[in-house]
């Protein structure tokens, strides 16, 4: 790395540090739950390395435990990650001119934190070229994703010492609710969450929790429509 890029990399590592507080416990929890469901350490690690998207990994784990059909598991867990297409759109103006193999690597590491910390900094640093932007990106994903792998491994390796009577079944719902509730800021977001809950419970009679996908689509529509109406109100 040229000397001018090293400070940018180090700065990015420091900026990512507060987020590691979250990554550690969640990665470890995934490792613990995965092995509690009968996965080997290698399989739990493969999950975190191949998928590298926490919420969808927990979703897949829960649906596998419920015995849902395989296509629905993949479909539902993928739907949890739909927002990443939006991250991809947001990153394209900044990193889209990198060579194809680099864009593939960038895409693999495109997680919530690299999007949030990348997009916000790129908007501010209009003087940065591609090399500086890539150094920043590498500085963000090194601690975030590195810790995700490490924490999964720790959880999977030492998780067997968790006493069997602990209410692990409910740790995942609590974690999910804790992830979502702090980011419910606008009315539109709260409406989407309410439609999601109400819709899923009302459609619970549908086979293998497929009602969730219908409710989620309705919730996304409700949020987007509400936001559009709010914008129109403020504009007019």
């Amino acid at each position, binding site marked *: 790395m040229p000397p001018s890029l090293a400070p940018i990399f180090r700065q990015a590592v420091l900026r990512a540090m507060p987020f590691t507080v979250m990554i550690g416990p969640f990665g470890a929890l995934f490792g613990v739950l995965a092995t509690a469901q009968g996965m080997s350490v290698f399989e739990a690690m493969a999950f975190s390395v191949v998928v590298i998207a926490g919420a969808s990994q927990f979703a897949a784990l829960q649906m596998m435990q419920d015995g849902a059909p395989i296509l629905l598991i993949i479909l539902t867990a993928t739907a949890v990650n739909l927002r990443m*297409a939006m991250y991809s759109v947001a990153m394209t103006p900044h990193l889209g001119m990198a060579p194809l193999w680099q864009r593939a690597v960038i895409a693999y590491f495109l997680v919530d934190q690299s999007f949030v910390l990348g997009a916000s900094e790129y908007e501010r640093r209009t003087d940065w070229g591609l090399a500086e932007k890539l150094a920043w990106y590498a500085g963000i994903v090194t601690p975030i994703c590195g810790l995700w792998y490490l924490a999964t491994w720790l959880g999977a390796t030492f998780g067997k010492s968790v006493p069997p009577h602990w209410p692990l079944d*409910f740790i995942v719902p609590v974690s999910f609710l804790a992830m979502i509730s702090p980011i419910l800021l606008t009315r539109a977001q709260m409406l989407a969450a309410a439609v999601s809950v109400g819709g899923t419970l009302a459609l619970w009679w549908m086979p293998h929790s497929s009602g969730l996908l219908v409710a989620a689509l309705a919730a996304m529509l409700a949020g987007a429509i509400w936001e559009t109406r709010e914008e129109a109100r403020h504009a007019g």
Partner: protein
Amino acid sequence: MPVEAIADKTLLWTVILGLGAATFLLRFSFLGLIGNRVLPGFLLKMLRYTPMAMIPGLVAPGVVWPAATGGEPDPARLIAALVTIAVGIWLRSTLAAVGAGVTALLLGLWGLG
């Protein structure tokens, strides 16, 4: 949680590889394949709501009808869920919300169970 072995390794690896490939394609979509073509604004708006559209619904049935109690509503789990949401919205901190939710769950199971 009952120790429920994921016995079907074919299913497990299909989920890992299928979910991994689909998620990579979502991340790669614009950066790699679609390039600078513009998505309709309304579609982008909808994509932004995926976390709040998917996750509350994913959790809700397990909160209301937990498998661990045979599908019977369980006051300890309901209270823990409500405490988690309240603390998350109030303090805007995931870690605080997890801590409060787990504490409420353990206290509830100990006190009510």
